[in-house]
Protein backbone atom coordinates (compact mmCIF):
# COMPACT_ATOMS: atom_id res chain seq x y z
CA UNK A 1 0.00 0.00 0.00
CA UNK A 2 2.29 2.72 -1.23
CA UNK A 3 -0.60 5.21 -1.08
CA UNK A 4 -0.51 5.10 2.73
CA UNK A 5 2.90 6.81 2.60
CA UNK A 6 1.21 9.91 1.15
CA UNK A 7 -0.12 10.65 4.64
CA UNK A 8 3.43 10.62 6.02
CA UNK A 9 4.70 12.87 3.23
CA UNK A 10 1.84 15.37 3.31
CA UNK A 11 1.74 15.19 7.11
CA UNK A 12 5.40 16.15 7.41
CA UNK A 13 4.79 19.07 5.03
CA UNK A 14 1.75 20.24 7.00
CA UNK A 15 3.71 20.13 10.23
CA UNK A 16 6.64 22.04 8.67
CA UNK A 17 4.29 24.68 7.26
CA UNK A 18 2.54 25.09 10.58
CA UNK A 19 5.92 25.63 12.23
CA UNK A 20 6.59 28.30 9.60
CA UNK A 21 3.24 29.92 10.44
CA UNK A 22 4.20 29.84 14.12
CA UNK A 23 7.45 31.66 13.40
CA UNK A 24 5.58 34.26 11.31
CA UNK A 25 3.17 34.74 14.21
CA UNK A 26 6.05 35.37 16.66
CA UNK A 27 7.64 37.80 14.21
CA UNK A 28 4.41 39.74 13.73
CA UNK A 29 3.71 39.76 17.46
CA UNK A 30 7.19 41.23 18.07
CA UNK A 31 7.08 43.73 15.20
CA UNK A 32 7.04 46.69 17.62
CA UNK A 33 9.27 45.29 20.36
CA UNK A 34 11.91 47.78 21.52
CA UNK A 35 15.44 46.96 22.58
CA UNK A 36 15.91 46.01 26.20
CA UNK A 37 18.66 47.32 28.49
CA UNK A 38 21.24 45.15 26.64
CA UNK A 39 20.59 47.10 23.45
CA UNK A 40 19.46 44.20 21.25
CA UNK A 41 15.86 44.03 20.06
CA UNK A 42 13.93 41.01 18.78
CA UNK A 43 15.42 39.57 15.56
CA UNK A 44 13.10 38.32 12.79
CA UNK A 45 13.22 34.53 12.48
CA UNK A 46 12.94 32.33 9.42
CA UNK A 47 12.53 28.57 9.14
CA UNK A 48 14.75 26.59 6.75
CA UNK A 49 13.11 23.61 5.08
CA UNK A 50 14.94 20.44 4.22
CA UNK A 51 13.90 17.29 2.37
CA UNK A 52 13.76 14.17 4.52
CA UNK A 53 13.51 10.73 2.92
CA UNK A 54 10.74 8.75 4.59
CA UNK A 55 10.86 5.43 2.78
CA UNK A 56 13.50 2.91 1.79
CA UNK A 57 13.24 0.49 -1.07
CA UNK A 58 15.78 -2.17 -1.95
CA UNK A 59 18.32 -0.70 0.44
CA UNK A 60 18.26 2.80 -1.04
CA UNK A 61 16.27 5.93 -0.29
CA UNK A 62 12.92 5.85 -2.05
CA UNK A 63 12.76 9.13 -3.97
CA UNK A 64 8.98 8.89 -4.19
CA UNK A 65 8.44 9.57 -0.46
CA UNK A 66 10.26 12.80 0.16
CA UNK A 67 8.90 14.57 3.21
CA UNK A 68 9.84 17.96 4.63
CA UNK A 69 11.33 18.95 7.94
CA UNK A 70 12.44 22.23 9.47
CA UNK A 71 16.23 21.91 9.71
CA UNK A 72 17.04 25.20 11.44
CA UNK A 73 15.47 28.48 12.45
CA UNK A 74 17.73 31.37 11.44
CA UNK A 75 17.71 34.88 12.85
CA UNK A 76 17.90 37.86 10.54
CA UNK A 77 21.05 39.93 11.16
CA UNK A 78 19.61 43.09 9.60
CA UNK A 79 19.95 46.17 11.84
CA UNK A 80 16.84 47.09 13.84
CA UNK A 81 14.68 50.09 13.01
CA UNK A 82 15.96 53.18 14.88
CA UNK A 83 13.57 55.98 15.76
CA UNK A 84 14.51 59.31 17.36
CA UNK A 85 12.36 59.65 20.48
CA UNK A 86 14.31 61.07 23.44
CA UNK A 87 11.32 60.90 25.78
CA UNK A 88 10.88 57.13 25.31
CA UNK A 89 11.95 55.22 28.44
CA UNK A 90 14.08 52.84 26.30
CA UNK A 91 15.89 55.62 24.40
CA UNK A 92 19.69 55.37 24.36
CA UNK A 93 22.15 58.19 25.16
CA UNK A 94 21.63 59.77 21.71
CA UNK A 95 17.85 59.66 22.08
CA UNK A 96 17.26 56.79 19.63
CA UNK A 97 14.94 53.86 20.30
CA UNK A 98 15.85 50.56 18.55
CA UNK A 99 12.88 48.49 17.43
CA UNK A 100 12.96 44.89 16.14
CA UNK A 101 14.03 44.30 12.52
CA UNK A 102 10.74 42.58 11.56
CA UNK A 103 9.27 43.71 8.23
CA UNK A 104 5.48 43.29 8.56
CA UNK A 105 4.97 43.27 4.79
CA UNK A 106 7.43 40.40 4.29
CA UNK A 107 5.85 38.50 7.16
CA UNK A 108 2.36 38.87 5.72
CA UNK A 109 3.55 37.54 2.34
CA UNK A 110 5.30 34.66 4.11
CA UNK A 111 2.10 33.92 6.02
CA UNK A 112 -0.03 33.77 2.86
CA UNK A 113 2.53 31.49 1.19
CA UNK A 114 2.62 29.17 4.22
CA UNK A 115 -1.15 28.98 4.46
CA UNK A 116 -1.50 28.18 0.73
CA UNK A 117 1.07 25.39 1.01
CA UNK A 118 -0.72 24.08 4.09
CA UNK A 119 -4.02 23.99 2.18
CA UNK A 120 -2.39 22.24 -0.77
CA UNK A 121 -1.08 19.46 1.43
CA UNK A 122 -4.41 19.04 3.20
CA UNK A 123 -6.03 18.64 -0.19
CA UNK A 124 -3.44 16.00 -1.14
CA UNK A 125 -4.36 14.08 2.01
CA UNK A 126 -8.09 14.34 1.32
CA UNK A 127 -7.64 13.03 -2.23
CA UNK A 128 -5.43 10.15 -1.06
CA UNK A 129 -7.96 9.30 1.64
CA UNK A 130 -10.89 9.12 -0.77
CA UNK A 131 -8.87 7.06 -3.27
CA UNK A 132 -7.84 4.61 -0.53
CA UNK A 133 -11.42 4.25 0.69
CA UNK A 134 -12.53 3.48 -2.86
CA UNK A 135 -9.70 0.94 -3.19
CA UNK A 136 -11.02 -0.82 -0.11
CA UNK A 137 -14.36 -1.30 -1.84
CA UNK A 138 -12.95 -3.16 -4.85
CA UNK A 139 -15.02 -6.21 -5.73
CA UNK A 140 -18.00 -5.30 -3.58
Amino acid sequence: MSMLRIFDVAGSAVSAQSQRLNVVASNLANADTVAGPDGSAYKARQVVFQTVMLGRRQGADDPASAGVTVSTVTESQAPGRRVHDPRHPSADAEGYVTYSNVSPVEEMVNMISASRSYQNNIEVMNTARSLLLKTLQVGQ
Partner: protein
Amino acid sequence: MIRQLTASLEFHGQSLLLRAERQRLIASNIANADTPGYKARDFNFADALRTATGSAGPGEGIAAGVMSPGGRLRPDLRHALASQVHLDSNTVDMDRERASFADNAVKYESTLRFINGSVRTVLDAMKSPGQP
Protein backbone atom coordinates in the same frame (compact mmCIF):
# COMPACT_ATOMS: atom_id res chain seq x y z
CA MET B 1 -8.83 -21.18 -18.06
CA ILE B 2 -8.89 -19.11 -14.88
CA ARG B 3 -5.60 -17.54 -16.01
CA GLN B 4 -7.35 -16.12 -19.05
CA LEU B 5 -10.17 -14.81 -16.89
CA THR B 6 -7.85 -12.91 -14.59
CA ALA B 7 -5.30 -11.74 -17.20
CA SER B 8 -6.95 -8.37 -17.71
CA LEU B 9 -7.21 -8.04 -13.94
CA GLU B 10 -3.44 -8.41 -13.69
CA PHE B 11 -2.87 -5.70 -16.26
CA HIS B 12 -5.12 -3.28 -14.41
CA GLY B 13 -3.50 -4.30 -11.13
CA GLN B 14 -0.08 -3.26 -12.43
CA SER B 15 -1.56 -0.07 -13.77
CA LEU B 16 -3.14 0.67 -10.36
CA LEU B 17 0.20 0.12 -8.59
CA LEU B 18 1.91 2.53 -10.97
CA ARG B 19 -0.85 5.10 -10.47
CA ALA B 20 -0.41 4.84 -6.68
CA GLU B 21 3.35 5.24 -7.12
CA ARG B 22 2.89 8.35 -9.26
CA GLN B 23 0.36 9.79 -6.80
CA ARG B 24 2.95 9.42 -4.03
CA LEU B 25 5.64 11.02 -6.17
CA ILE B 26 3.45 14.06 -6.95
CA ALA B 27 2.50 14.31 -3.26
CA SER B 28 6.24 14.48 -2.47
CA ASN B 29 6.69 17.24 -5.03
CA ILE B 30 3.79 19.23 -3.55
CA ALA B 31 5.13 18.70 -0.03
CA ASN B 32 8.54 20.04 -1.07
CA ALA B 33 7.19 23.06 -2.96
CA ASP B 34 9.03 25.42 -0.56
CA THR B 35 12.18 23.36 0.09
CA PRO B 36 15.32 25.07 -1.27
CA GLY B 37 17.21 23.01 -3.84
CA TYR B 38 14.52 20.33 -4.24
CA LYS B 39 14.20 18.94 -7.78
CA ALA B 40 10.71 17.89 -8.85
CA ARG B 41 10.47 14.36 -10.25
CA ASP B 42 8.01 12.47 -12.38
CA PHE B 43 7.93 9.43 -14.67
CA ASN B 44 6.43 8.64 -18.04
CA PHE B 45 3.39 6.55 -17.17
CA ALA B 46 3.02 4.89 -20.59
CA ASP B 47 6.68 3.77 -20.64
CA ALA B 48 6.53 2.53 -17.05
CA LEU B 49 3.37 0.52 -17.72
CA ARG B 50 4.92 -0.96 -20.85
CA THR B 51 7.98 -2.03 -18.85
CA ALA B 52 5.87 -3.39 -15.99
CA THR B 53 3.59 -5.48 -18.18
CA GLY B 54 5.94 -6.11 -21.09
CA SER B 55 3.27 -5.10 -23.56
CA ALA B 56 2.10 -2.19 -25.64
CA GLY B 57 -1.51 -2.45 -24.51
CA PRO B 58 -3.98 -4.65 -22.63
CA GLY B 59 -4.73 -6.83 -25.66
CA GLU B 60 -1.27 -7.71 -26.94
CA GLY B 61 0.51 -8.57 -23.72
CA ILE B 62 -2.22 -10.86 -22.56
CA ALA B 63 -2.31 -12.76 -25.85
CA ALA B 64 1.47 -13.19 -25.82
CA GLY B 65 1.39 -14.15 -22.14
CA VAL B 66 4.45 -12.08 -21.26
CA MET B 67 3.03 -10.46 -18.16
CA SER B 68 5.03 -11.22 -15.05
CA PRO B 69 2.88 -11.39 -11.95
CA GLY B 70 4.58 -9.89 -8.94
CA GLY B 71 7.29 -8.23 -11.06
CA ARG B 72 8.88 -5.26 -9.32
CA LEU B 73 7.74 -1.89 -10.52
CA ARG B 74 10.64 0.49 -10.78
CA PRO B 75 9.70 3.38 -12.99
CA ASP B 76 12.77 5.36 -13.96
CA LEU B 77 12.39 8.84 -12.50
CA ARG B 78 13.17 11.97 -14.45
CA HIS B 79 13.65 15.48 -13.25
CA ALA B 80 10.89 17.85 -14.28
CA LEU B 81 11.93 21.19 -15.72
CA ALA B 82 10.36 24.24 -14.13
CA SER B 83 8.73 26.75 -16.43
CA GLN B 84 9.88 29.51 -14.10
CA VAL B 85 13.22 29.32 -12.34
CA HIS B 86 13.27 29.97 -8.59
CA LEU B 87 16.19 31.70 -6.92
CA ASP B 88 16.53 28.82 -4.42
CA SER B 89 16.86 26.34 -7.35
CA ASN B 90 13.62 24.58 -6.41
CA THR B 91 12.02 23.21 -9.60
CA VAL B 92 8.50 22.41 -8.36
CA ASP B 93 5.92 23.96 -10.66
CA MET B 94 2.88 24.10 -8.40
CA ASP B 95 0.31 24.56 -11.19
CA ARG B 96 1.61 21.57 -13.10
CA GLU B 97 1.86 19.41 -9.97
CA ARG B 98 -1.71 20.23 -8.96
CA ALA B 99 -2.95 19.41 -12.46
CA SER B 100 -0.99 16.12 -12.58
CA PHE B 101 -2.28 15.23 -9.12
CA ALA B 102 -5.93 15.74 -10.10
CA ASP B 103 -5.39 13.95 -13.43
CA ASN B 104 -3.69 11.00 -11.74
CA ALA B 105 -6.44 10.76 -9.11
CA VAL B 106 -9.14 10.56 -11.78
CA LYS B 107 -7.18 7.91 -13.71
CA TYR B 108 -6.56 5.92 -10.52
CA GLU B 109 -10.29 5.91 -9.93
CA SER B 110 -11.06 4.85 -13.48
CA THR B 111 -8.57 1.97 -13.19
CA LEU B 112 -10.42 0.96 -10.02
CA ARG B 113 -13.67 0.91 -11.97
CA PHE B 114 -12.10 -1.29 -14.68
CA ILE B 115 -10.99 -3.68 -11.95
CA ASN B 116 -14.44 -3.70 -10.42
CA GLY B 117 -15.90 -4.44 -13.85
CA SER B 118 -13.49 -7.33 -14.45
CA VAL B 119 -14.18 -8.75 -10.99
CA ARG B 120 -17.89 -8.62 -11.63
CA THR B 121 -17.46 -10.32 -15.01
CA VAL B 122 -15.39 -13.12 -13.49
CA LEU B 123 -17.89 -13.58 -10.68
CA ASP B 124 -20.76 -13.70 -13.17
CA ALA B 125 -18.90 -16.30 -15.24
CA MET B 126 -18.44 -18.48 -12.16
CA LYS B 127 -22.14 -18.51 -11.30
CA SER B 128 -24.10 -21.62 -12.22
CA PRO B 129 -26.92 -21.09 -14.72
CA GLY B 130 -29.69 -21.55 -12.18
CA GLN B 131 -28.30 -19.02 -9.71
CA PRO B 132 -29.77 -15.51 -9.80
